[in-house]
């Protein structure tokens, strides 16, 4: 057992009961964490694609993305490293809008990103108004260190599922582990059931 350090509290603050999942603490900061260098894709080179079986089904350029309806999203976000940030404000396009009404028999998606990062999610968790392709944060363009030009935003799951620098979704029949999932993190990642690691 580590001895308690007299007078040390860290920078956390209390939050209203029930607002924060178990094992989390609230921060005012917005920590920048990544597994590699920050990509710097220019808007004119950026595209977002939906693929199935290795084939592109549809894609949008930056301009095309901005022709779609934009939503303002306020959400609490929860990082598996135990910090939570409340009432964060984002602007983006709903993943429902991107996937469209066309039905698919795919049940999972694998988000893929500049720099090679991937993360997997059930299709049901990126639809039904639960996920966005976010390109604005706090009223400004999303900065590169936080995932700009655009990132996935799926606030009901741990933040590693909200893939930064996202460039598309692969529609899959079966759940396949993405980057952190391959290294032992939970395939689903529900912060309210504290699903941090595989087997939790």
């Amino acid at each position, binding site marked *: 057992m*580590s*001895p*308690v*350090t*007299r*007078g*040390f*509290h*860290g*920078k*956390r603050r209390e939050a209203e009961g029930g607002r924060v999942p178990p094992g989390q*603490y609230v921060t005012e*900061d917005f920590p920048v964490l990544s597994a590699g260098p920050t990509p710097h894709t220019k808007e004119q080179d950026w595209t977002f694609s939906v693929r199935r079986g290795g084939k592109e089904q549809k894609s949008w350029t930056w301009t095309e993305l901005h022709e779609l309806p934009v939503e303002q999203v306020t959400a609490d976000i929860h990082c598996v490293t135990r910090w939570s940030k409340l009432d964060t404000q984002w602007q983006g396009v709903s993943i429902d809008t991107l996937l469209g009404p066309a039905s698919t028999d795919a049940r999972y998606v694998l988000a893929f990103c500049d720099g090679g990062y991937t993360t997997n999610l059930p299709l049901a968790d990126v639809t039904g108004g639960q996920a966005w392709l976010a390109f604005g944060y706090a009223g400004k363009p999303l900065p590169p260190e936080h995932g700009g030009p655009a990132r996935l935003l799926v606030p009901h799951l741990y933040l590693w599922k909200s893939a930064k620098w996202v460039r598309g979704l692969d529609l899959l029949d079966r759940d396949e582990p993405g980057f952190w999932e391959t290294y032992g993190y939970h395939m689903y990642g529900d912060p309210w059931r504290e699903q941090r690691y595989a087997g939790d």
Partner: protein
Amino acid sequence: MAGTAVRGRLTWQVGTVSEVIVETPTVRTIYVDVPDWAGHRAGQHLDVRLTAEDGYSAERSYSIASAPGEPVAITVQRLDDGEVSPYLTDELRPGDELELRGPIGGYFVWDGEPEPMLLLAGGSGVVPLRAMLRHRARTGSATRARLLYSARALPDVIYRAELDEYGRDGAEVSYTLTKQQPPGWSGHAGRVDQVLIEQVAFPVEQHPAAYVCGPTSFVEAVAQWLVMLGYPPSRVKTERFGGK
């Protein structure tokens, strides 16, 4: 016990703060009394762990500021938005316990080798380099040493009196102040650049050992300039402290 400084298990130990020295308004040197301290080499660091009452903990690494043979000390710069450094600089007092693990490192170390040592410090990167100069002074080493220390302004320079003393005693110490210089300043001004590196670097033929420490961008620029001057990469040791 000195043999366990490199080999053997590394475990968390609890030390007692014995002294806190004010180096600058935002910098403190903290001496810690660690029972069974295995000794350390110049350039090594240690990890500090702070634990709150509810079990929340935070860890950071700090370079050892004292020389081999001296009690272990770290020098901490207060980062305004930091989580650990403000505690160490503002709250920690003699008599407090501090959990730490070390010494750590076997790459960024100077053990008294005779080849000329070129020390390049960006901001708090001066800490492990000071341990090296302190070791050199305490052992009466004949190794030629040159330190170029980049800081924002004179009040930010850590260990000024001690470094100037080394400068009078056979080492060559120079400063470059990047944001503000006092009236009559005769040292360098502005950020370190390739020209300044060329001026201070020992000739490659002398087989110098270079140690570069500070923010990542500083370290990478300086290391690259040294390699461009012909320093073999294996003779340019780097330690990045993050930051801009």
